[in-house]
Protein backbone atom coordinates (compact mmCIF):
# COMPACT_ATOMS: atom_id res chain seq x y z
CA UNK A 1 0.00 0.00 0.00
CA UNK A 2 1.24 3.47 -0.86
CA UNK A 3 1.51 6.31 1.61
CA UNK A 4 -0.37 9.58 1.38
CA UNK A 5 2.84 11.32 0.30
CA UNK A 6 3.32 8.86 -2.52
CA UNK A 7 -0.27 9.38 -3.66
CA UNK A 8 0.29 13.15 -3.71
CA UNK A 9 3.44 12.73 -5.80
CA UNK A 10 1.49 10.64 -8.29
CA UNK A 11 -1.20 13.32 -8.48
CA UNK A 12 1.50 15.91 -9.11
CA UNK A 13 2.41 14.13 -12.35
CA UNK A 14 -1.12 14.48 -13.74
CA UNK A 15 -1.43 17.58 -15.92
CA UNK A 16 -4.59 19.66 -16.23
CA UNK A 17 -6.19 18.45 -19.48
CA UNK A 18 -6.72 21.99 -20.78
CA UNK A 19 -3.50 23.60 -19.52
CA UNK A 20 -0.93 20.87 -19.84
CA UNK A 21 1.94 22.81 -18.24
CA UNK A 22 0.53 22.69 -14.72
CA UNK A 23 -0.63 19.77 -12.67
CA UNK A 24 -4.03 19.27 -11.06
CA UNK A 25 -2.30 19.74 -7.70
CA UNK A 26 -0.75 23.08 -8.68
CA UNK A 27 -4.10 24.26 -10.03
CA UNK A 28 -5.79 23.40 -6.74
CA UNK A 29 -8.18 20.88 -8.25
CA UNK A 30 -6.91 17.88 -6.26
CA UNK A 31 -7.82 18.85 -2.71
CA UNK A 32 -7.54 15.93 -0.38
CA UNK A 33 -6.30 12.37 -0.21
CA UNK A 34 -7.58 9.79 2.25
CA UNK A 35 -6.58 6.19 2.59
CA UNK A 36 -9.35 3.90 3.81
CA UNK A 37 -8.06 0.32 4.08
CA UNK A 38 -7.10 -0.66 0.53
CA UNK A 39 -9.07 2.21 -0.97
CA UNK A 40 -7.67 5.59 -2.01
CA UNK A 41 -10.13 8.48 -1.88
CA UNK A 42 -9.24 11.60 -3.84
CA UNK A 43 -11.33 14.75 -3.41
CA UNK A 44 -11.42 17.09 -6.38
CA UNK A 45 -13.16 20.43 -6.88
CA UNK A 46 -14.11 22.14 -10.15
CA UNK A 47 -12.67 25.52 -11.16
CA UNK A 48 -16.04 26.40 -12.70
CA UNK A 49 -19.32 24.53 -12.17
CA UNK A 50 -19.53 23.51 -15.80
CA UNK A 51 -15.86 22.70 -16.25
CA UNK A 52 -15.96 19.92 -18.85
CA UNK A 53 -12.45 18.85 -17.88
CA UNK A 54 -13.64 17.29 -14.63
CA UNK A 55 -14.61 14.04 -16.36
CA UNK A 56 -11.25 13.92 -18.11
CA UNK A 57 -9.47 14.59 -14.82
CA UNK A 58 -11.39 11.81 -13.08
CA UNK A 59 -10.45 9.48 -15.92
CA UNK A 60 -6.78 10.55 -15.82
CA UNK A 61 -6.53 9.94 -12.08
CA UNK A 62 -8.02 6.45 -12.37
CA UNK A 63 -5.75 5.59 -15.28
CA UNK A 64 -2.60 6.84 -13.56
CA UNK A 65 -3.51 5.06 -10.32
CA UNK A 66 -4.12 1.81 -12.22
CA UNK A 67 -0.64 2.08 -13.74
CA UNK A 68 0.75 2.52 -10.23
CA UNK A 69 -1.06 -0.58 -9.07
CA UNK A 70 -3.78 1.17 -7.10
CA UNK A 71 -6.93 -0.73 -7.94
CA UNK A 72 -9.50 0.64 -5.54
CA UNK A 73 -10.01 4.34 -6.18
CA UNK A 74 -12.86 6.61 -5.26
CA UNK A 75 -13.07 10.14 -6.62
CA UNK A 76 -15.27 12.55 -4.73
CA UNK A 77 -16.41 15.90 -6.06
CA UNK A 78 -16.42 18.54 -3.35
CA UNK A 79 -17.68 22.13 -3.55
CA UNK A 80 -16.53 23.51 -0.25
CA UNK A 81 -14.24 25.33 0.35
CA UNK A 82 -14.95 26.91 -3.01
CA UNK A 83 -12.14 26.98 -5.57
CA UNK A 84 -10.50 30.33 -6.12
CA UNK A 85 -7.49 31.43 -8.15
CA UNK A 86 -5.66 31.84 -4.82
CA UNK A 87 -5.10 28.10 -5.00
CA UNK A 88 -2.70 28.62 -7.89
CA UNK A 89 0.77 29.01 -6.40
CA UNK A 90 3.49 31.44 -7.51
CA UNK A 91 5.45 28.69 -9.25
CA UNK A 92 2.39 27.66 -11.24
CA UNK A 93 1.67 31.28 -12.18
CA UNK A 94 5.16 31.50 -13.68
CA UNK A 95 4.49 28.37 -15.71
CA UNK A 96 1.20 29.81 -16.95
CA UNK A 97 2.90 33.00 -18.06
CA UNK A 98 5.68 31.11 -19.84
CA UNK A 99 2.96 29.12 -21.59
CA UNK A 100 1.38 32.36 -22.86
CA UNK A 101 -1.51 32.65 -20.43
CA UNK A 102 -1.61 35.77 -18.27
CA UNK A 103 -1.90 34.52 -14.67
CA UNK A 104 -4.71 35.73 -12.38
CA UNK A 105 -3.91 39.00 -10.66
CA UNK A 106 -5.63 39.47 -7.32
CA UNK A 107 -4.48 43.00 -6.54
CA UNK A 108 -5.85 44.55 -9.70
CA UNK A 109 -9.21 42.86 -9.20
CA UNK A 110 -9.62 44.41 -5.78
CA UNK A 111 -8.74 47.81 -7.14
CA UNK A 112 -11.15 47.48 -10.04
CA UNK A 113 -13.97 46.65 -7.64
CA UNK A 114 -13.33 49.77 -5.55
CA UNK A 115 -12.41 52.30 -8.20
CA UNK A 116 -14.36 50.89 -11.12
CA UNK A 117 -11.23 51.37 -13.25
CA UNK A 118 -10.36 48.73 -15.78
CA UNK A 119 -7.68 46.40 -14.55
CA UNK A 120 -4.37 46.20 -16.33
CA UNK A 121 -3.33 42.76 -17.47
CA UNK A 122 0.25 42.79 -18.79
CA UNK A 123 0.89 40.89 -22.01
CA UNK A 124 2.50 37.51 -21.16
CA UNK A 125 4.48 37.72 -24.38
CA UNK A 126 6.08 41.19 -24.39
CA UNK A 127 5.14 42.48 -20.93
CA UNK A 128 3.36 45.57 -22.26
CA UNK A 129 0.57 47.17 -20.21
CA UNK A 130 -1.20 48.31 -23.36
CA UNK A 131 -3.68 45.48 -23.55
CA UNK A 132 -7.43 45.45 -24.11
CA UNK A 133 -10.18 43.06 -23.11
CA UNK A 134 -11.71 41.46 -26.18
CA UNK A 135 -14.17 39.23 -24.38
CA UNK A 136 -14.82 38.17 -20.80
CA UNK A 137 -15.33 34.68 -22.15
CA UNK A 138 -12.31 32.96 -23.67
CA UNK A 139 -11.30 29.56 -24.94
CA UNK A 140 -12.37 27.88 -21.69
CA UNK A 141 -14.69 28.89 -18.86
CA UNK A 142 -11.82 30.00 -16.64
CA UNK A 143 -10.23 32.38 -19.14
CA UNK A 144 -10.94 35.78 -20.71
CA UNK A 145 -9.65 36.89 -24.10
CA UNK A 146 -7.26 39.87 -24.31
CA UNK A 147 -5.26 41.50 -27.04
CA UNK A 148 -1.89 43.23 -26.78
CA UNK A 149 -1.76 46.54 -28.63
CA UNK A 150 2.04 46.59 -28.51
CA UNK A 151 2.92 43.25 -30.07
CA UNK A 152 -0.61 42.75 -31.50
CA UNK A 153 -0.90 39.21 -30.21
CA UNK A 154 -4.14 37.93 -28.66
CA UNK A 155 -3.77 36.07 -25.38
CA UNK A 156 -5.77 34.28 -22.70
CA UNK A 157 -6.05 35.69 -19.20
CA UNK A 158 -6.79 33.32 -16.34
CA UNK A 159 -9.72 35.14 -14.73
CA UNK A 160 -9.29 36.07 -11.10
CA UNK A 161 -12.01 34.21 -9.35
Amino acid at each position, binding site marked *: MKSKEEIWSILETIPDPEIQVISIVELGIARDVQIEGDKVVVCIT*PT*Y*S*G*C*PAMDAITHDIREKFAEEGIKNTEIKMI*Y*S*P*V*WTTDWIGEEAKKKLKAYGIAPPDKTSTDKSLITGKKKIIPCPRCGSDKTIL*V*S*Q*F*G*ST*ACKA*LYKCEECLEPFDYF*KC*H
Partner: protein
Amino acid sequence: MKNTSEHLFEYCLRLGDTPLILGQRLAEWCGHGPILEEDIAMTNISLDCIGQARAFLTYAGEIEGKDRTEDDLAYFRNEREFRNLLITEQPNEDFAQTMLRQFLISAFHKHFYSELMRSADKTLSALAEKSLKEVNYHFRHSSEWLKRFGNGTEESRTRLMNAMDNLWRYTGDMFDMDETDKHLVECKIAADLDKIKTLWNKSVEEVFSEAGIDMPKDVFMMSGSRKGKHTEHLGHILAEMQSLARSFPGASW
Protein backbone atom coordinates in the same frame (compact mmCIF):
# COMPACT_ATOMS: atom_id res chain seq x y z
CA MET B 1 -48.30 18.32 4.54
CA LYS B 2 -44.80 17.91 3.23
CA ASN B 3 -41.92 17.48 5.65
CA THR B 4 -38.73 19.55 5.45
CA SER B 5 -36.89 17.00 3.37
CA GLU B 6 -39.71 16.88 0.78
CA HIS B 7 -39.75 20.66 0.62
CA LEU B 8 -35.98 20.67 0.19
CA PHE B 9 -36.21 18.21 -2.70
CA GLU B 10 -38.77 20.46 -4.38
CA TYR B 11 -36.55 23.49 -3.76
CA CYS B 12 -33.48 21.80 -5.25
CA LEU B 13 -35.45 20.91 -8.37
CA ARG B 14 -36.23 24.60 -8.81
CA LEU B 15 -32.60 25.53 -8.29
CA GLY B 16 -31.49 22.91 -10.81
CA ASP B 17 -34.20 23.25 -13.47
CA THR B 18 -33.81 27.00 -13.88
CA PRO B 19 -30.15 26.92 -15.01
CA LEU B 20 -30.76 23.66 -16.90
CA ILE B 21 -33.41 25.16 -19.18
CA LEU B 22 -31.57 28.47 -19.51
CA GLY B 23 -28.39 26.60 -20.44
CA GLN B 24 -30.27 24.54 -22.99
CA ARG B 25 -31.72 27.72 -24.55
CA LEU B 26 -28.32 29.43 -24.70
CA ALA B 27 -26.77 26.37 -26.31
CA GLU B 28 -29.12 26.89 -29.27
CA TRP B 29 -26.89 29.84 -30.17
CA CYS B 30 -23.86 27.58 -30.61
CA GLY B 31 -22.53 28.27 -34.10
CA HIS B 32 -25.15 31.01 -34.68
CA GLY B 33 -23.82 33.91 -32.60
CA PRO B 34 -23.76 37.37 -34.22
CA ILE B 35 -19.98 37.49 -33.81
CA LEU B 36 -17.47 34.85 -32.79
CA GLU B 37 -16.81 36.35 -29.34
CA GLU B 38 -20.51 36.35 -28.51
CA ASP B 39 -20.96 32.83 -29.80
CA ILE B 40 -18.23 31.78 -27.38
CA ALA B 41 -19.68 33.93 -24.58
CA MET B 42 -23.16 32.45 -24.85
CA THR B 43 -21.89 28.89 -24.95
CA ASN B 44 -19.61 29.63 -21.99
CA ILE B 45 -22.56 30.97 -20.03
CA SER B 46 -24.55 27.94 -21.10
CA LEU B 47 -21.80 25.70 -19.76
CA ASP B 48 -21.82 27.50 -16.40
CA CYS B 49 -25.60 27.02 -16.25
CA ILE B 50 -25.45 23.32 -17.07
CA GLY B 51 -22.71 22.88 -14.44
CA GLN B 52 -24.85 24.57 -11.80
CA ALA B 53 -27.86 22.49 -12.85
CA ARG B 54 -25.88 19.26 -12.53
CA ALA B 55 -24.78 20.06 -8.99
CA PHE B 56 -28.26 21.10 -7.78
CA LEU B 57 -29.99 18.14 -9.44
CA THR B 58 -27.44 15.69 -8.05
CA TYR B 59 -28.17 17.10 -4.62
CA ALA B 60 -31.93 16.90 -5.28
CA GLY B 61 -31.47 13.20 -6.02
CA GLU B 62 -29.56 12.69 -2.77
CA ILE B 63 -32.25 14.48 -0.76
CA GLU B 64 -35.00 12.44 -2.39
CA GLY B 65 -33.18 9.22 -1.55
CA LYS B 66 -34.60 7.16 -4.40
CA ASP B 67 -31.32 6.76 -6.27
CA ARG B 68 -32.28 9.18 -9.03
CA THR B 69 -29.23 10.74 -10.65
CA GLU B 70 -28.90 14.17 -12.26
CA ASP B 71 -29.52 12.48 -15.62
CA ASP B 72 -32.65 10.68 -14.41
CA LEU B 73 -34.03 13.98 -13.23
CA ALA B 74 -33.07 15.92 -16.35
CA TYR B 75 -34.13 13.39 -18.96
CA PHE B 76 -36.93 11.37 -17.45
CA ARG B 77 -39.29 13.90 -15.95
CA ASN B 78 -42.25 15.31 -17.85
CA GLU B 79 -43.13 18.92 -18.49
CA ARG B 80 -45.41 19.33 -15.48
CA GLU B 81 -42.64 18.05 -13.19
CA PHE B 82 -40.20 20.77 -14.27
CA ARG B 83 -39.78 23.71 -11.92
CA ASN B 84 -37.68 26.13 -13.98
CA LEU B 85 -38.65 29.81 -13.91
CA LEU B 86 -40.90 30.68 -16.85
CA ILE B 87 -38.54 33.34 -18.17
CA THR B 88 -35.80 30.78 -18.84
CA GLU B 89 -37.90 28.82 -21.35
CA GLN B 90 -38.81 31.86 -23.47
CA PRO B 91 -37.40 31.66 -26.99
CA ASN B 92 -34.08 33.25 -27.92
CA GLU B 93 -35.65 35.27 -30.77
CA ASP B 94 -32.95 37.85 -31.58
CA PHE B 95 -29.75 38.70 -29.72
CA ALA B 96 -31.50 41.58 -27.89
CA GLN B 97 -34.11 39.25 -26.42
CA THR B 98 -31.49 36.68 -25.44
CA MET B 99 -29.42 39.34 -23.67
CA LEU B 100 -32.42 40.92 -21.94
CA ARG B 101 -33.52 37.50 -20.69
CA GLN B 102 -29.96 36.88 -19.50
CA PHE B 103 -29.81 40.22 -17.77
CA LEU B 104 -33.13 39.86 -15.93
CA ILE B 105 -32.29 36.37 -14.69
CA SER B 106 -28.64 37.12 -13.88
CA ALA B 107 -29.68 40.17 -11.83
CA PHE B 108 -32.02 37.84 -9.96
CA HIS B 109 -29.39 35.12 -9.43
CA LYS B 110 -26.77 37.62 -8.32
CA HIS B 111 -28.86 38.61 -5.32
CA PHE B 112 -30.43 35.20 -4.87
CA TYR B 113 -27.12 33.33 -4.59
CA SER B 114 -25.64 36.03 -2.33
CA GLU B 115 -28.51 35.35 0.04
CA LEU B 116 -28.43 31.55 -0.38
CA MET B 117 -24.76 31.58 0.64
CA ARG B 118 -26.06 32.15 4.16
CA SER B 119 -28.26 29.05 4.04
CA ALA B 120 -28.23 26.72 7.01
CA ASP B 121 -27.89 23.91 4.45
CA LYS B 122 -24.14 23.58 3.91
CA THR B 123 -24.41 22.06 0.43
CA LEU B 124 -26.72 24.79 -0.83
CA SER B 125 -24.50 27.46 0.64
CA ALA B 126 -21.37 26.01 -1.03
CA LEU B 127 -23.11 25.67 -4.40
CA ALA B 128 -24.46 29.21 -4.11
CA GLU B 129 -20.98 30.58 -3.44
CA LYS B 130 -19.65 28.77 -6.49
CA SER B 131 -22.52 29.85 -8.73
CA LEU B 132 -22.37 33.47 -7.61
CA LYS B 133 -18.85 33.87 -8.95
CA GLU B 134 -20.06 32.77 -12.37
CA VAL B 135 -23.29 34.74 -12.35
CA ASN B 136 -21.39 37.97 -11.63
CA TYR B 137 -19.74 37.62 -15.04
CA HIS B 138 -23.07 36.89 -16.72
CA PHE B 139 -24.59 39.95 -15.08
CA ARG B 140 -21.77 42.24 -16.14
CA HIS B 141 -21.75 40.89 -19.68
CA SER B 142 -25.50 41.27 -20.26
CA SER B 143 -25.59 44.70 -18.55
CA GLU B 144 -23.02 46.01 -21.01
CA TRP B 145 -25.11 44.81 -23.93
CA LEU B 146 -28.28 46.42 -22.56
CA LYS B 147 -26.52 49.77 -22.37
CA ARG B 148 -25.31 49.40 -25.93
CA PHE B 149 -28.75 48.45 -27.23
CA GLY B 150 -30.48 51.28 -25.37
CA ASN B 151 -28.01 53.96 -26.41
CA GLY B 152 -27.22 52.49 -29.82
CA THR B 153 -29.27 52.85 -32.97
CA GLU B 154 -33.01 53.08 -33.40
CA GLU B 155 -32.90 49.48 -34.56
CA SER B 156 -31.12 48.20 -31.46
CA ARG B 157 -33.38 50.16 -29.14
CA THR B 158 -36.54 48.95 -30.92
CA ARG B 159 -35.39 45.36 -30.62
CA LEU B 160 -34.68 45.82 -26.93
CA MET B 161 -38.12 47.31 -26.32
CA ASN B 162 -39.81 44.52 -28.28
CA ALA B 163 -37.97 42.02 -26.11
CA MET B 164 -39.16 43.90 -23.02
CA ASP B 165 -42.77 43.50 -24.22
CA ASN B 166 -42.18 39.77 -24.56
CA LEU B 167 -40.29 39.14 -21.34
CA TRP B 168 -41.23 41.54 -18.58
CA ARG B 169 -44.45 39.69 -17.79
CA TYR B 170 -42.41 36.65 -16.71
CA THR B 171 -40.36 38.50 -14.10
CA GLY B 172 -43.07 38.28 -11.42
CA ASP B 173 -42.77 34.48 -11.46
CA MET B 174 -39.23 34.77 -10.04
CA PHE B 175 -40.54 36.17 -6.75
CA ASP B 176 -43.64 34.08 -6.11
CA MET B 177 -43.36 32.36 -2.75
CA ASP B 178 -45.33 29.21 -2.01
CA GLU B 179 -45.42 26.97 1.06
CA THR B 180 -42.06 25.41 0.15
CA ASP B 181 -40.33 28.79 0.07
CA LYS B 182 -42.03 29.91 3.26
CA HIS B 183 -41.28 26.71 5.14
CA LEU B 184 -37.62 26.71 4.11
CA VAL B 185 -37.20 30.42 4.83
CA GLU B 186 -38.40 29.66 8.34
CA CYS B 187 -35.79 26.88 8.58
CA LYS B 188 -33.18 29.41 7.37
CA ILE B 189 -32.47 27.21 4.36
CA ALA B 190 -34.09 29.20 1.53
CA ALA B 191 -33.64 32.78 0.41
CA ASP B 192 -36.47 35.20 1.22
CA LEU B 193 -37.70 36.32 -2.19
CA ASP B 194 -39.39 39.48 -0.92
CA LYS B 195 -35.97 40.69 0.07
CA ILE B 196 -34.45 39.63 -3.27
CA LYS B 197 -37.18 41.47 -5.16
CA THR B 198 -36.22 44.82 -3.63
CA LEU B 199 -32.54 44.29 -4.46
CA TRP B 200 -33.37 43.06 -7.95
CA ASN B 201 -35.54 46.11 -8.67
CA LYS B 202 -32.71 48.38 -7.62
CA SER B 203 -30.10 46.64 -9.82
CA VAL B 204 -32.42 46.52 -12.82
CA GLU B 205 -33.38 50.16 -12.43
CA GLU B 206 -29.72 51.20 -12.29
CA VAL B 207 -28.81 49.46 -15.52
CA PHE B 208 -32.02 50.54 -17.26
CA SER B 209 -31.32 54.17 -16.42
CA GLU B 210 -27.82 53.85 -17.90
CA ALA B 211 -29.40 52.27 -20.95
CA GLY B 212 -31.86 55.17 -21.11
CA ILE B 213 -34.98 53.04 -20.71
CA ASP B 214 -37.84 53.08 -18.20
CA MET B 215 -39.02 50.31 -15.92
CA PRO B 216 -42.21 48.88 -17.46
CA LYS B 217 -45.30 49.64 -15.37
CA ASP B 218 -48.62 47.92 -14.75
CA VAL B 219 -47.79 44.75 -16.62
CA PHE B 220 -49.89 41.69 -15.82
CA MET B 221 -47.52 39.07 -14.38
CA MET B 222 -47.60 35.44 -15.45
CA SER B 223 -46.89 32.82 -12.81
CA GLY B 224 -46.91 29.06 -12.48
CA SER B 225 -43.38 27.65 -12.48
CA ARG B 226 -43.67 26.49 -8.87
CA LYS B 227 -46.62 24.30 -9.79
CA GLY B 228 -45.11 23.10 -13.05
CA LYS B 229 -47.45 25.21 -15.19
CA HIS B 230 -45.37 26.28 -18.14
CA THR B 231 -45.70 28.24 -21.34
CA GLU B 232 -45.99 26.28 -24.58
CA HIS B 233 -42.25 26.56 -25.17
CA LEU B 234 -41.01 24.15 -22.51
CA GLY B 235 -42.48 21.07 -24.18
CA HIS B 236 -40.48 21.76 -27.32
CA ILE B 237 -37.25 22.23 -25.38
CA LEU B 238 -37.78 18.96 -23.52
CA ALA B 239 -38.62 17.10 -26.73
CA GLU B 240 -35.24 18.05 -28.12
CA MET B 241 -33.30 17.69 -24.89
CA GLN B 242 -34.78 14.36 -23.81
CA SER B 243 -35.33 12.48 -27.07
CA LEU B 244 -31.93 10.82 -27.23
CA ALA B 245 -31.91 9.69 -23.60
CA ARG B 246 -35.45 8.35 -23.92
CA SER B 247 -34.86 6.57 -27.23
CA PHE B 248 -31.64 4.97 -26.02
CA PRO B 249 -31.80 4.74 -22.22
CA GLY B 250 -28.36 4.40 -20.66
CA ALA B 251 -26.57 5.31 -23.90
CA SER B 252 -23.03 6.64 -23.54
CA TRP B 253 -20.16 7.59 -25.79
